[in-house]
C-alpha cells in the first residue's frame, strides 16, 4: 500500500487518498481531538465511525448515491471508501449558469427528499458535502452527524441547516437555490409534507435567539 496522501484536513476528520487492493480509495480518519476529554472523544469518534457507514449504506437503498464502503475500523476510527471523482457542489454553484444552478438545487432537493422519505436525516447538509460526478450524479458524503428517524422536527432541522449553509456560503443566490431545493423535495414527499416541514422550519427559526418573527413580540 502506498503512503496515503492527505487531501483534506477537515474539522472532524482527515481525508487521505490511498491505494487499497489496487484501487484508489479515500481513507477517512477521525483523529483524536486534543481539546476534549479522552473519554468523550473516544465515544464520539467511535460512534460516528460506526454510524456513518451504516447511514451511507441505507442512503443507497433510498436511491441516494454515496461512496461504497470497503472497510470500517472502529478501533482506529477509520473508514475506507470509494473515491468519487467529481466536483464539490459548493464550487459549482458560483460557477455555473442560473439554469444549471437551479437544476442542481432541484436535484439536491430531490435527493434530500429521498433520504427523508426513507427515514434518514443527514445531519450536516452543506454544499461541501455533495459531489457531482462526470455522469451528473450527485453523491452525498459526511453522514457522521446523521440519524435514522422520520420525525418532523429532525426533518425541519435538516432542511434548516441546508438553508443556513446556503445563506452563509451562497448568499448571492440563497433564495433562488433554497426554492429549487424545496421544489425538488416536494417532488418526492408531496405538497402536504413539504408544507409541514416548511412550517417546522419557521418554528425552528423562531426559536432562535434573535428572530423578528418570534411570536407575540413587537419591536
Amino acid at each position, binding site marked *: 500500500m502506498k503512503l496515503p496522501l492527505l487531501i483534506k484536513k*477537515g*474539522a472532524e476528520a482527515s481525508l487521505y487518498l490511498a491505494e487499497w487492493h489496487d484501487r484508489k480509495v479515500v481513507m477517512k480518519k477521525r483523529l483524536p481531538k486534543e*481539546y476534549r*476529554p479522552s473519554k468523550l472523544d473516544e465515544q464520539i469518534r467511535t460512534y460516528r465511525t460506526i454510524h456513518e457507514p451504516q447511514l451511507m449504506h441505507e442512503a443507497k437503498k433510498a436511491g441516494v448515491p454515496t461512496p461504497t464502503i470497503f472497510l470500517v475500523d472502529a478501533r482506529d476510527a477509520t473508514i475506507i471508501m470509494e473515491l468519487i471523482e467529481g466536483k464539490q457542489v459548493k464550487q459549482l454553484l458560483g460557477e455555473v449558469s442560473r439554469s444549471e444552478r437551479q437544476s442542481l438545487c432541484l436535484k439536491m432537493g430531490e435527493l434530500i427528499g429521498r433520504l427523508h422519505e426513507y427515514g434518514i436525516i443527514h*445531519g450536516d447538509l452543506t454544499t461541501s458535502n455533495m459531489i457531482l460526478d462526470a455522469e451528473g450524479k450527485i453523491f452525498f458524503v459526511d453522514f457522521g452527524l446523521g440519524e435514522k428517524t422520520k420525525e418532523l422536527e429532525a426533518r425541519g432541522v435538516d432542511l434548516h441547516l441546508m438553508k443556513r449553509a446556503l*445563506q*452563509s456560503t451562497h448568499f448571492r443566490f440563497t433564495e433562488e437555490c433554497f426554492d429549487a431545493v424545496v421544489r425538488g423535495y416536494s417532488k418526492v414527499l408531496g405538497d402536504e409534507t413539504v408544507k409541514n416541514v416548511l412550517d417546522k422550519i419557521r418554528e425552528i427559526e423562531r426559536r*432562535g435567539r*434573535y*428572530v423578528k418573527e418570534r411570536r407575540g413580540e413587537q419591536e
Partner: protein
Amino acid sequence: MKRKKAGESYSLGIESTADDFSVGISTFNGEILANIISAYMPEEGGIHPREAARHHAEVAGKVLEEAFTKSGIKPRNLSVVTFSQGPGLGPCLRTGATIARALASYFNVPLVGVNHCIAHIEIGKLETGAKDPITLYVSGGNTIVSAFDSGRYRIFGETLDIALGNCLDVFAREAGLRQRVGMPFGAVIEKFAVDGKKMIPLPYTVKGMDTSFSGLLTAAVNLLKKREHTLEDLSYSLQETAFSMVTEVTERALAHTEKKEVLLTGGVAANKRLQSMIMTIAKEHNAEFRVVPSEFAIDNGAMIAWTGVLAYKHGMITPIEKSFVKLRWRLEEVEVLWVK
C-alpha cells in the same frame, strides 16, 4: 484630569442590552479612555427585564459622570453619541436608547445605533489586533460562530435554543450557588470544574454547525437533583461537554472558511478552559488564537463607542426618529461598510 487634545474626536457609547449598564468613551483612533460598567445582580432568579431597566435608569447618571471624569473630557467635546440598538431585552434597550437620544439632542451631535453582537467582534479585533478572524462569540444571550464575507459578518453556526452562558447560569442557580460582582456564575462554575475529575456522560448535541444546550442543561440539572455526583464532577462534565460542542463547530467553521485567526469574545470568553480548547484547534489549523481581555469580554460601553466610530466614519448615522430599538436584530442584517 484634562484630556482634550486639539483636533481629536471622541465617541461616547451606551450599552444596556441586558443586565449590565455601561458607558464607554473612545477616541476616533480606538483609544479607550473610559469603560465604566454597573452590573445588575438579582438576589434570586434570572434577569427580570423591568427590574434590570430600573437598575440602569438608577445608575445611569453616576456611570456617565464617572466615565467623563475618568476620560477627562467634557460632554461638549463629544463628536458622536452611540448606543446599543439591539438585540436584547426591550426595557433595558429602551432605557439606554432614551439616554442616548437625550444626550445627542442636548449636545447637538449625531446619534449612531450599534449592533451589540458586532460590537463584541469589533472590540475583540481592536484589542487583540485580529484582522479577519473566525469569531466565537459566547455570552449569556448569544452563541454565534461568524466570519466576515462580502460586506457582512455571516453566521456560520449558532445555538438552536439557549445560549451557552445561559446554560451555565441556570445550572449554577439550580445548584444554589451565588454570584457577586467580579465573580459571575460562569466563574463560580469554572472554579468548581477545576476540581472535577469524573467525566459524567451528558447529551452532546451538534447539528451541522449549530449547537443545542437545552437537553444538556436538563440532563445536568436532573443529575444535580439526584445527588449522586459531586458538584465539582458535574460542573466539570457540563463545561467539558458544552465547550467541546462549541469548539467542534468553531473548528468546522475554521476548516470551512480557512481563515487564519480565531477570536474568542463575549462573557464566557473569560473561561480559561474554553480558551485552552479554542487555542488547541487554532494551532491545529495554523491559525492565530486571540482572546478579548476580560474587561471587554463582558457587555461594555467601550465596544459600542468604538463600533459607533467605525460606522460614523462611513457615514452611518441613526436619525432620532429611526432610533427605535431592535430586539431581534441579527448581526448578519448589518451592512459592514468599514471592513474591506
